[in-house]
């Protein structure tokens, strides 16, 4: 008889300007796997953070085994039996498996008070064999594969008597074989009575491994279905829900020549046989979920990720790109995924950020020509309608939308002919979104070839002239504009 292990009741969490979690109630039975699905920004991470103690909820209650608990820090979460296996593993790589599992609580010999290594190793082996793993407890964790490291984290959680285990995109970095092994591990955990919350974008997986699925959208819980009674397309429409509005500009394509071509791009173990081309004035969308390889493709185009095989052709000529400087020389512009850490220098002013990529153009001599810099700043503030009290304000004080516009302006100042844009409107308000789309439209008309990497489905469907679906490092399918709806796109990307 399954008992209610966890109950989150009417949980709310807001940040300035956005309700991240809006009156969500979920429950988890012992020995069950509950899938948690939803698009980027649906609220899954925030919900989980409140359970794991990384964030404190504004209102609501959490019950574990029918006892109300206060989870206000990671430590209290652990005490209450909640453990999280994050995507970015936090193992202590220089220490052994046994030490990672027992960190801070090594078993001691009763008389000598010294560490009882034998006991630590035995208990580690016990926990590991529970997970069907034969990892040697003495191995140094740094030498293990990502899968093995995950198992170590799971073992650590089990050892700490985790009743609720949260797994966040656990198979994102795993091979098929390792994923299968992980599923067997999950089965065993179920038999132990552990309750698992399984966050994943991958439909197949979720349908394979979960007992029930909860779907979130825009901070709300849309519904929870028993997996075996559910239909994949139904789940996807629950995730998407909203209508495709006339929100996006219609960007007309007058097909001109091929500006950019990628041939047989390969990064061993990451992306395989990537081939596509982009015409002048065309927007090609790359759509893939977490761990699909989309980001790697984008980064390899500008030389941040090193290619093992393959060629890049610009206007018919092969080019070699070894880093951002080369890509700039070849007139490729890049809007990185993380504007705060990769796109902007937060302590610099608006003016200084806008000119950072074009320092050479700030006058003929080695001295910066202030009037040229000022005019650049004015130009882009006007063109992109950047809202800032002055050009000398530090960029970190601006809103996300304005920050993104500054990244855009900085890149566009270099007059790129090819533009790689990653998540252009993530964390950006509606008004700024429209401005950015308008800019992309203008660029198309000027003949810029644009590669758009985005997980915002309505966005990528509406703006792109073609969408390439990427999953597990390969391009799976191509949709021309109008050929696919939101469900189709998500479905294709969720396969494999």
């Amino acid at each position, binding site marked *: 008889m399954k008992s209610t292990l966890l109950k989150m009741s009417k949980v709310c969490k807001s940040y300035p300007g956005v309700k991240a979690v809006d009156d969500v109630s979920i429950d988890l039975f012992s020995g069950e796997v509950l899938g948690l699905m939803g698009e980027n920004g649906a609220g899954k991470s925030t919900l989980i953070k409140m359970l794991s103690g990384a964030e404190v909820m504004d209102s609501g209650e959490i019950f574990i085994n029918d006892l109300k608990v206060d989870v206000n820090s990671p430590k209290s979460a652990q005490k209450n039996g909640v453990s999280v296996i994050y995507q970015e593993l936090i193992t202590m790589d*220089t220490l052994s498996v046994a030490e990672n599992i027992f960190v*801070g609580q090594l078993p001691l010999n009763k008389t000598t008070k010294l*560490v009882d290594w034998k006991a630590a190793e035995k208990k580690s082996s016990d926990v590991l064999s529970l997970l069907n793993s034969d990892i040697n407890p003495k191995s*140094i964790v740094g030498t293990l594969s990502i899968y093995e490291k995950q198992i170590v984290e799971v073992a650590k959680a089990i050892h700490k008597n985790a009743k609720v285990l949260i797994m966040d995109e656990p198979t*994102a970095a795993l091979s098929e074989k390792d994923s299968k092994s992980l599923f067997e591990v999950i089965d065993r955990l179920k038999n132990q009575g552990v309750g698992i919350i399984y966050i994943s974008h991958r439909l197949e997986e979720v349908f394979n491994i979960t007992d029930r699925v909860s779907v979130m959208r825009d901070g709300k819980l849309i519904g929870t279905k028993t997996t075996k009674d559910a239909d994949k397309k139904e789940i996807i429409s629950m995730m998407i829900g909203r209508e495709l509005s006339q929100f996006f500009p219609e960007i007309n394509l007058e097909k001109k020549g091929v500006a950019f071509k990628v041939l047989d791009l390969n990064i061993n173990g990451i992306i395989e046989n990537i081939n596509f081309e982009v015409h002048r004035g065309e927007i090609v969308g790359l759509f893939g979920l977490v*761990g699909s390889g989309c980001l790697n493709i984008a980064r390899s185009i500008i030389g941040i990720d090193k290619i093992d095989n393959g060629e890049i052709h610009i206007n018919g000529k092969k080019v070699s790109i070894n880093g951002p400087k080369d890509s700039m020389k070849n007139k490729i512009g890049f809007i990185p995924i993380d504007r705060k850490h990769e796109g902007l220098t937060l302590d610099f002013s608006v003016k200084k950020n806008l000119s950072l990529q074009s320092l050479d153009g700030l006058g003929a001599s080695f001295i910066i020509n202030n009037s040229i810099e000022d005019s650049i700043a004015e130009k882009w503030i006007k063109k992109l309608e950047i809202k800032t009290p002055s050009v000398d304000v530090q960029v970190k004080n601006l809103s996300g939308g304005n920050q993104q516009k500054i990244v855009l302006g900085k890149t566009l100042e270099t007059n790129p002919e090819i533009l790689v844009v990653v998540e252009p409107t993530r964390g950006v308000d509606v008004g700024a979104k429209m401005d950015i789309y308008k800019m992309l439209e203008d660029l198309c008309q000027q003949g810029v070839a644009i590669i758009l990497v985005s997980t915002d489905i309505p966005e990528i469907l509406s703006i792109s002239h073609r969408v390439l679906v990427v999953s597990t490092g390969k391009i799976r399918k191509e949709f021309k504009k109008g050929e696919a709806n939101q469900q189709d796109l998500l479905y294709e990307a969720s396969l494999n």
Partner: protein
Amino acid sequence: MKAWLKSLVYSDDIVGALTIFLIILVVFFSLMTPHFFSMNNFYSIIGNIPAMAILCLGLTYVVLVGDLDLSLGSILGITAILAVFFFKVMGFPLWLNLLSCVFIGGLFGALNGVIVTKIGINSIITTLGTMALIRGLTYWIAMDVDAMQVGRITDPAFLNFGRYYFPEDSRLIPITLVYICILYVASYIFLNHTSFGRKIYAVGSNEATARLAGINVKRVKLVCYILAGMLSAFGGLVLVAQLGLGEAYTGQNMILEVVTAVVLGGVLLTGGKGRLTGVIIAVLILGVIRNGMVHLEQVTDISFYWRDVAKGVILLLAIGLYSVRKSFNAKRLRTRQ
């Protein structure tokens, strides 16, 4: 192939490589010079390393936890002066002298630790500052107290602390070797077999995860700094006993060699990894080089000052190797995003 690469990056095989290097050095100097390979000379080498070895042990604690302590040479220096002061001016018996100096060393270590953990200043700048501060104090004490002008100690009981040999007649084992053994073995047990010792490694390996696991990171670091200070003080006493002399400049240039030995010995600068065996062999290597170069100078024209150059080169090579290993590892850990 991949497994081999992995083990190269994370293995502890450095001890083997170091031992081989040490043997090569011994062979080299034995062949090149007539008097290197002799019992007398080996005793000379061992006689020169105690203070260094003890300081390296102290620094190891701090590096294991992820920081750096540049003030250890100064703590040794002030201890040297204080030892003479306590002995000559205050008339302390040996045991009281020892206790007081080690206590004061611990206090200075605590000063470092508090500044780094509570105020949050970078450990390098902190210990750079305390290094100057303590050295200045040392000179002040040395100059202000008249008896200090000649910092000699002639009392046999005191001198025996550093110069005694076991057993009385055959004089085989120097007492300093005993100190090194006791301290290193005790540290070995502490670091590898006690709960707290493993917490030191945990904090050095991944401070955030250690904190999540409930380890009091500040306390662990503070203890390491205090231990480093106490050990440096003890090393200072041994040095004074050996030399019969305690001057204000004692230990002034030691810290570079100490850092070199610790880095060479395989202790990871980012923390969480390091074997005492490696450290002691590295100390021996540097001691052999120092001694060997003196002999080399007598036979060839090679100035023995090249040994300082050699030490710097070794430091650079050691850290260069580490950087290469690091980039290897980064390549291995690429993930699909």
